[in-house]
């Protein structure tokens, strides 16, 4: 199983934290891509195969909700699993994101929470 992951957050430090966690999780990572906003993410998705995207909500240019709307409206991206990683505390917004098929990791998170959510979303057994 090869895995291509996209991490979308306007904070480079947050992207580094998530990528480090993914690398330590024992996943068969092939490529890890990064984007600083939703528009950059869409450009990457148009030209690279991505299996899983971790997406922040509050970003400039194009936020995470807009990105997820665009991804879910594009049949070519139907296979991209989505996990929102955000401080978002509004139950209404969280449920709306989940209704679009996204899972949710709340910031601040532990590496263990990220690992277990990613394994669950990908359907990988926790050995």
């Amino acid at each position, binding site marked *: 199983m090869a895995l291509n992951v996209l991490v979308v957050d306007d904070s*480079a*430090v*947050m992207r580094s934290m998530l990528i*480090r966690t993914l690398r330590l999780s024992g996943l068969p990572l092939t490529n890890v891509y990064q984007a600083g906003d939703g528009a950059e993410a869409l450009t990457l998705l148009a030209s690279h195969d991505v299996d899983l995207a971790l997406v922040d909500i*509050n970003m400039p240019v194009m936020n995470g909700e807009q990105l997820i709307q665009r991804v879910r409206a594009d049949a070519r991206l139907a296979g991209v699993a989505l996990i929102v990683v955000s*401080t978002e*505390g*509004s139950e209404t917004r969280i449920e709306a994101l989940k209704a679009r098929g996204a899972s949710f990791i709340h910031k*601040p998170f532990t590496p263990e929470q990220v690992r277990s959510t990613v394994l669950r979303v990908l359907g990988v057994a926790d050995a």
Partner: protein
Amino acid sequence: MPESLTAPLADAASETFESLAYCFAEPAPPSAVPGAGVDGVVAVAFEGEARGGVVLQLSGGVLSAMAGNMLGLEEPASPADQRDALGEAANVICGNVLPRVAGVAAVFALGVPQHFPTWQAAIETIGSPDAHIALEVEGGRADVALVMRPAA
């Protein structure tokens, strides 16, 4: 300062420093916001069912440790990463204090972190605090203010 804002602000800030940055945080003795030895000042504005912002100042060298912890480094993080880490900490504190004070049904939009040269400059831009807490964090200090006004 309304107690109803102070305790949630302290909880959100402590949780952020501990869970995100592995920095133990405990209440600091009451004193004026430091003007010297400041590592950085950042604010995150919000609007929605209320408007305002969170202002965060780190002093006493804690920012270097915090950023290094977040990145899993033994050596100090770069100045650019420290600045980024400060902004992200403010973002997480802001995102976590709002449901605590306004409830989980409330919807807010958070702005991007804005960096300021001084605490005073941040307060002049964001507004006079409705709550302010100070924490001792890893030998340094965090000052966190919450500005909360009725929606425009």
